């Protein structure tokens, strides 16, 4: 009897621990919602549109966890000379009339109508079926027209020979590069490095997911809070939205 009671107690503790773990991990998991990882060789799903909702009220000034994580993931030096690549950066904003201060990450906005893709002479700049805007490093001739065309200053030109290939993304001198939305992770069902780093810091400022799935956390949140897209006047339909601007 006592043994049976003890077993029940153990089961209760185990279930309780599992439930506690689920409750604590769930917000992290809810940051992105994948149906499944994409098998190699399978084309990107046009029914999906990956996007982000950035809550500037949760983004802490001075925190650059997202930037560091991106640099580490993609093998960027982290240097900030005008000739160095920065795929994601922190903007420190101050409203001109009220003086209100905002901190937020800035990266490729993965537009539905990307000007970089329109202007690229060789088609090296392209948009995947699931909305991720990328550069084909084998096709880029380094003309930098996409950098002229991008309203978000999202792209960097590799000004020097690349010696450190530790990152997951191919890079090459003389070509243009930008945030890939960590496409290599997304295809494996893992959230982008910046999203994970932000959650790890406890800020939860970046929500990532499928904008086309009405049941996804990001779609539900976008329906329930006021958000804006940057330079909405240009009608480029960016995949990244912001709360608190």
């Amino acid at each position: 009897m006592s043994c049976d009671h003890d077993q029940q107690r153990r089961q209760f503790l185990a279930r309780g621990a599992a439930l506690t773990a689920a409750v604590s991990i769930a917000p992290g998991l809810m940051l992105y919602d994948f149906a499944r990882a994409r098998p190699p060789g399978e084309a990107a799903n046009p029914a999906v549109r990956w996007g982000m909702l950035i809550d500037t009220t949760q983004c802490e000034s001075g925190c650059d966890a997202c930037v560091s994580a991106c640099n580490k993931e993609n093998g960027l030096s982290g240097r900030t000379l005008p000739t160095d690549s920065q795929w994601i950066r922190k903007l420190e904003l101050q409203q001109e009339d009220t003086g209100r201060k905002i901190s937020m990450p800035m990266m490729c906005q993965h537009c539905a109508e990307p000007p970089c893709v329109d202007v690229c002479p060789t088609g090296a700049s392209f948009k995947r079926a699931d909305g991720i805007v990328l550069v084909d490093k084998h096709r880029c001739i380094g003309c930098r027209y996409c950098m002229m065309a991008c309203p978000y200053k999202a792209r960097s030109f590799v000004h020097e020979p690349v010696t450190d290939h530790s990152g997951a993304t191919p890079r090459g001198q003389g070509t243009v590069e930008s945030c890939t939305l960590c496409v290599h992770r997304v295809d494996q069902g893992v959230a982008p490095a910046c999203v994970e780093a932000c959650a790890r810091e406890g800020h939860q400022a970046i929500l990532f997911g499928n904008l086309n799935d009405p049941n996804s956390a990001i779609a539900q949140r976008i329906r329930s809070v006021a958000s804006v897209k940057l330079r909405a006047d240009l009608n480029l339909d960016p995949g990244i939205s912001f709360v608190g601007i």
Partner: protein
Amino acid sequence: MHHKTFAQIEIRYFYLLLVLGLVVVLGGLLAAQQMEAHGHVISGMNNQVVWGLPHVFAIFMIVSASGVLNVASVGSVFGRHVYKARAPLAGLLSLALLAGGLMVLMLDLGRPDRVIVAATNYNPTSVFAWNVLLYSGLFATVGLYLWTLMDRTMGGWSKPAGFLVFIWRIILTTGTGLIFAFLVARQAYASALLPPLFIIMSFAWGLAIFLIVQFAMFSWNELQLNPAIQKRLKNLLGLFVVSVLYLVATYHLTNLYFSRQVAFERFILAHGGLYTALFWGGYVVLGSIVPLLLIFMPGLGQARCVLLASLLVLVGAFSLLYVFIIGGQAFPLLIVPGYTVHSSFGDGQLASYAPTVFEWALGAGGLGVAFVTVTVGVRILNFLPHDDPRQPMEGN
């Protein structure tokens, strides 16, 4: 006596010029090789000012390559004999300038070794890709036109060929203007005024180059240009300079009317340091007003005045392009309107740009290609404008 002496040593001058031109070309090629080996980090360009001095040179040459054909068009399309006598030289200058400009543009690419990719992968929505066709087409159409001018059996075709060149170059310069006009991102560009501005700039700069080369050729051969022809050509240059000034003024005045553009205009016109100085001093005063005085002031307007005016128009051209291309990029992007912004990536800050010796060398190398092509071309081909003294002067 002097004539005989110069004729004897003239060949030496020719080779001296040729060697000088080739040295400049070699310098450009070496600079490009260095930029490819070490990356664009050895240039002054960066992630904010992504197109630098080489683009100023390249666009100057490509725009001028189109404009210099104006002389040929007036001759062939509108049947003016004075201009038709100059059409072969105009065609040669056009091909030379286009070759120089394209060389600079291609060697400034991050991956010039992949230029074949640009020819084999074609994005139809890119105005850059259209321009690949337009530039190659200009080589073909001007080549065809020169053929009809030089082969007497083809003489009847020179008018349609000239018309084809006329249409092609107008479309080509429209395409060059559209490279900037299609850029919604930056405040300096995204204006439908740019294609017509580029076309009229091409007329002025192309004619200025033509007049300089014509002066050099006539001096070299110790000939005097017919004063009536001189007068007509200088008046035409003056008209083009005024037209460019008008469109540039319209561009800035319309911008000043839009409150969202006022900060940018203040930067270019008042507080932009080098850009402001180049705009007013380089373009407006030296590149426009002084040439107009040299052309139209009573007592001036002689051959040397026109030569100086033409040279100053080119000084103005470089100044205007530098302000337009580099000043336009130096002004920060307006990503979050209503906020001041700071970041590690230069957001909200005026970008600094200082061209390095590699960029100067590459740009000059393009001019060198044009110079060598013209020097050899006029030597081996009879392209000196021959004015028929019996030909009555047409009305203006």
